[in-house]
């Protein structure tokens, strides 16, 4: 089912937001406004946004260490996201989680896992909850090609298939894990094949094409919501930058190769062109971009001007129902 022009414009808005959010993140790492690192998802915007747009607002999403795009795709508030990257009290996780460990329960984004692969069974659990409660929700778990080598991925596929749980396994295959090429770590490069062994419907799509990702994911969501159980969607995509800004990891991909990929397969640029081709006028596109640029500027300002958490509140949120506070000892 092709996206309507409005949907495409919305997809563009979200993808451009992800792009600019990541750019702002990297910039603020360089400026020292963000502690730690920034796992940019630039290059993967179509994959993240296409998948998220196939979900209803209260469907569950579990992300990874590279989830800014996932949360923005799902509709998270970017002011609170940016404040989280900056470790501020106004951050969506009150500055406790940080860049790699964001979550926005208000849009169903329950958590993102800094433990590679660790989010997959959590998404399965969310799907179990939807199934038990019969509330019509589905759960989507993002993971990378690297994560697909964790045993819990298979364990989770098997359980999802045995019980027919409403789960979408969404593998963003960018062919690289930190500095390691998938070529050296995957006996079979297509992750989708691994779903076969459990009889799970699966599809490989061009992860640079938001429409293809949206379509495939929508079908998977429809199956899940219709009681037909889990599916796996593999998006072949590209991480444009290094593993994380703030670290200085090179990887096997040559500058030459990356230049070509960026030139030919930039999902944001290509969607912009497609929008123009489909008749949306340049002014409308510029309006979207201006709106996003302003929102990102505001998010950065919001983050910068927000207070840090009060150092004395370091043990808040240790427990939902604290019993006794043996742990409060900083001396």
């Amino acid at each position, binding site marked *: 089912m092709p996206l309507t022009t409005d949907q495409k414009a919305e997809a563009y808005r979200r993808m451009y937001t992800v792009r600019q959010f990541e750019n702002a993140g990297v910039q603020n790492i360089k400026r020292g406004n963000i502690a730690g690192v920034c796992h940019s998802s630039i290059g993967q915007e179509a994959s993240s946004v296409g998948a998220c747009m196939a979900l209803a607002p209260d469907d*569950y999403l*579990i992300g990874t260490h590279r989830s800014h795009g996932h949360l923005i795709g799902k509709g998270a508030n970017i002011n609170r996201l940016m404040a989280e990257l900056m470790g501020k009290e106004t*951050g*969506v*996780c*009150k*500055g*406790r*989680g940080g860049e790699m*460990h964001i*979550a*926005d*329960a208000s849009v169903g984004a*329950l*958590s993102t*896992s*800094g*433990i590679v692969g*660790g989010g*997959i*069974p*959590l*998404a*399965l*659990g*969310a*799907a*179990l*909850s*939807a*199934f*038990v*409660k019969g509330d019509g929700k589905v*759960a989507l778990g993002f993971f990378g090609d690297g994560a697909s080598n964790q*045993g*819990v991925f298979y*364990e*989770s596929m*098997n*359980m999802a298939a*045995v*019980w027919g749980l409403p789960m979408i396994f969404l593998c963003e295959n960018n062919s690289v894990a930190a500095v390691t090429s998938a070529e050296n770590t995957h006996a079979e490069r297509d992750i989708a094949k691994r779903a076969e062994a459990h009889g799970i419907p699966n599809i490989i799509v061009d992860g640079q094409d938001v429409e293809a990702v949206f379509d495939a994911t929508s079908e998977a969501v429809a199956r899940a919501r219709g009681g037909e159980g889990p599916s796996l969607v593999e998006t072949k995509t590209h991480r444009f930058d290094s593993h994380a800004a703030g670290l200085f990891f090179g990887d096997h991909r040559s500058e030459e190769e990356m230049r070509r990929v960026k030139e030919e397969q930039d999902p944001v640029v290509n969607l912009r062109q497609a929008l123009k081709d489909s008749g949306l006028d340049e002014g409308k596109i510029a309006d979207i971009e201006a709106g996003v640029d302003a929102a990102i500027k505001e998010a950065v300002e919001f983050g910068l001007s927000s207070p840090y958490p009060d150092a004395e509140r370091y043990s*808040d*949120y*240790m*427990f*939902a*129902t604290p*019993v*006794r*506070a*043996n*742990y409060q000892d900083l001396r």
Partner: protein
Amino acid sequence: MVEMKSISYLQAVTEAQREEMLANPDVVIMGEDLALYESDPSYLQGANNKQVWHTPISECGFTGMGVGAAMAGLRPIVNLTIASFVYLASDPIINQAGKLHYMTGGQIKIPAVFRAFYLHQGSNAAQHSDRPHPMFMAQPGLKIIAPSTPSDMKGLLKTAIRDDDPVLLFEDAVLWAKKGDVPDTDEHLIPLGVADIKRPGTDVTIVTISSCLYHGLKAAEKLEKEGISAEVIDPRTLAPLDFDTILESVAKTGRLVVVDNANRTLSAASEIAANVSENGFDSLKKPIQRVTTPDVHIPFSPALEEQFYPNADKIVAAVKRII
């Protein structure tokens, strides 16, 4: 007043789970071979019972699933069965369940219970006999119960299932058949983090973990005959630990013996000793004594295993070293 009835320790587990599952459809149970670990598994039966999930042998996966289910509003009881298998599930328990409430700034609750039982004793050998509660006590963000009586089991487990944080339950399989009086009500709840003075005394404090209680009580009886009055305390909850009750007792007795089936190094006994040596030092008249298993794997051969665990005689000997 509430009537009492006599039930076994394992019955207490089953009753707590069954009652809570009946009362709340969000309470679900998951694990392998579930029926084996109930006094009466009939309540787990019934096709399409969405509260019961017989899992594949995938400890890491189904534990993660339990955590995710809790994040999305269920109240799972994840049965890991033999405690020696918890290492496989330790990542989702420690890195996810224990941390996500904090890491999400309080957005996410994880009302999950993780069951595991000690299968020490009886020649189950090193890969089936661990008592690994200490490794979880060392992890912030987890609550841990280790009840020793049917009443404590039922009351604490019911509280745990209703609690909004992840709780680990360590059962001692040695006690499964042990009977005891339990209030005959669906609302028998015991708060987490409160120790129980199982026997009051004045000369020495004996803190016992889980089934060690019974060795402590027997030792106290023996000591009484020699005119030594021992106070026996069961913390019941290992995290958070009720040090107040222990410190108060030591303030009175000046002597402390801690008894734990865990290996000596970094046992629960170690933490209690460390804490009292820090916060109760001035009360202490004599060195703290730990009575534990040695830092050696549990051997298969009964000829070797027999001597491994704390017992009343070892406790009496420890008390005599400091009286």
